[in-house]
């Protein structure tokens, strides 16, 4: 079995008295798509923020390619190959779509002309090229989610954290985004994805990690997890109602 690319080891993150993530461990192996699911407030986004360097863990470690990255800054982790999107998208609204992606491209292409060239490739790939000169603020929600993915991709990451990139899109847009994610995996990018829409997460994930109240309650293939009584009770049961 291949060495894990990401190893979350006994990770705990608390805010004052609230333990948002409680002794969670799991691994992500190269070229996998791992889905992180759980009810609202289960700690998914907090976990993302720890892995991407926005929060330092209270206890436990995060290993990336076998090296401890706990507490490293987000920009250092971007340099090491971790790209992320935000659930609440973070476009640079006053700048053009192209400029948004150029800024991300500077990480691997410090020269402006090269960065712009690279940004155009990313825009073609994500289907935003025709809106390159529009301001990012003028994009639709689907466009902004796409831009969010585009910016993360422009970092040329080996590992991508996607936080609800599908939620709020219409069915056609959902299919486009799924195609995009599968294409990324085929290019060799490993993906950890948080998503609420079960239809999507069940379809694209190789494995699922289920959180509830900050703790891991299940892990396995989508089929295994769907049959897990604990998961059904905590989560799917309520959803399917």
């Amino acid at each position, binding site marked *: 079995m291949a060495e894990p690319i990401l190893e979350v080891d006994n990770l705990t993150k608390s805010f004052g008295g609230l333990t948002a993530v409680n002794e969670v461990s799991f691994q992500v192996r190269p070229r996998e798509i791992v889905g992180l699911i759980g009810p609202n407030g289960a700690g998914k986004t907090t976990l993302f923020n720890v892995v991407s360097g926005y929060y330092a863990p209270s206890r436990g470690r995060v290993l990336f390619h076998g090296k401890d990255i706990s507490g490293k800054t987000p920009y250092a982790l971007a340099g090491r190959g971790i790209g992320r999107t*935000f659930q609440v998208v973070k*476009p*640079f609204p006053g700048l*053009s779509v192209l400029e948004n992606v150029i800024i991300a491209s500077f990480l691997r292409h410090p020269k*402006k002309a090269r960065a712009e060239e690279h940004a155009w490739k990313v825009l073609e790939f994500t289907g935003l090229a025709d809106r390159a000169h529009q301001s990012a603020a003028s994009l639709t929600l689907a466009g902004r989610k796409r831009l969010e993915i585009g910016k993360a991709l422009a970092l040329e990451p080996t590992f991508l954290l996607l936080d609800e990139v599908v939620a709020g899109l219409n069915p056609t847009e959902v299919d486009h985004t799924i195609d995009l994610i599968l294409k990324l995996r085929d290019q060799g990018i490993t993906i950890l994805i948080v998503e609420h829409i079960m239809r999507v997460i069940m379809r694209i994930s190789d494995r699922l990690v289920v959180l509830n109240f900050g703790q891991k309650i299940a892990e396995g293939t989508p089929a295994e997890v769907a049959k897990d009584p604990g998961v059904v009770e905590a989560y799917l049961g309520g959803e399917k109602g």
Partner: protein
Amino acid sequence: MKDRRLPGYLLVFVAMLLVPAVVHDTFLLRVFTEAVMWIGLAVTFDVLAGYTGYLNFGHSAFFGIGAYTTAILMVRAGWPFAPAAALGGAAAGLGALIAGFPTLRLRGAYFAIATWALARAIQQGVLMMGITGGPDGMRLPALLSPGFFYYVMLGVVGVTFFAYWFLLERAPFGLKLKAIREDEQGAKALGLNPTRLKIQAFVLSAVPTGIIGGVFAYWVTFIDPASTLGDLVSDQALVMVVFGGMGTLVGPVIGAVLIFAFKTVFWAYLSDYEVLYLIILGGVIAASVVFLPDGVLGVLPQRRKGVKDHG
């Protein structure tokens, strides 16, 4: 990605080089010199305010540090003007480096308050020190050459402008600063180190401001804490930048010229109504914030934001 505006900038600069050949009136040349100075102060203010999104109400501190460093070196140590003014710029840059670490962690109004308070602290410090002459200020050796000062001021401001043009409009640096202005947390995920970039911007804003302060000190031959470290420099620069157009290079220049021209004309012809000056200025600023959010520059036709055409 050719910038078609560069020839225009160079043309204006050459035209300004010719001003002393046409303007022989000493008073008028002083007016032009001061106009150039305000262009410099507005452009340097905008690096932080417009590009990076941080309103620095302590901009006057850099100006004053430059002025006092130059004065002390010339008067107390017998240095010639040029190295003294250069060190004035370095001192202002060092000040920005030191002040930047604690203050640039703050956002919005808190940064404005902290920098304002820091500038007041420096002003009080200078008032109490012996080496600065305290409230009596300092008198510098007089050099009666209006042409010299015009060219020195224009040289410093011109070099600053073109250096800024390269760094902020051509090089990646300007876009990186704008990313911080637009969304600091989002910028981090893209590999940008906001603290480092903000400190660089702060120093980039401070160094020319300090040199301009040094030129000012030698030019007017007398400085005191109120004239160099008071609120005026920060306030006026802010007004010029907001009125002209924030986050651009040309906006502050236009704002500085218009506001300074208004001030000069007002004081020359309407000084009986001086009480009205600040009222009118305040009204103009309030109106421009409401009706011209992008400044005067924003109402000019054919302005395209962002990167030029592809290829």
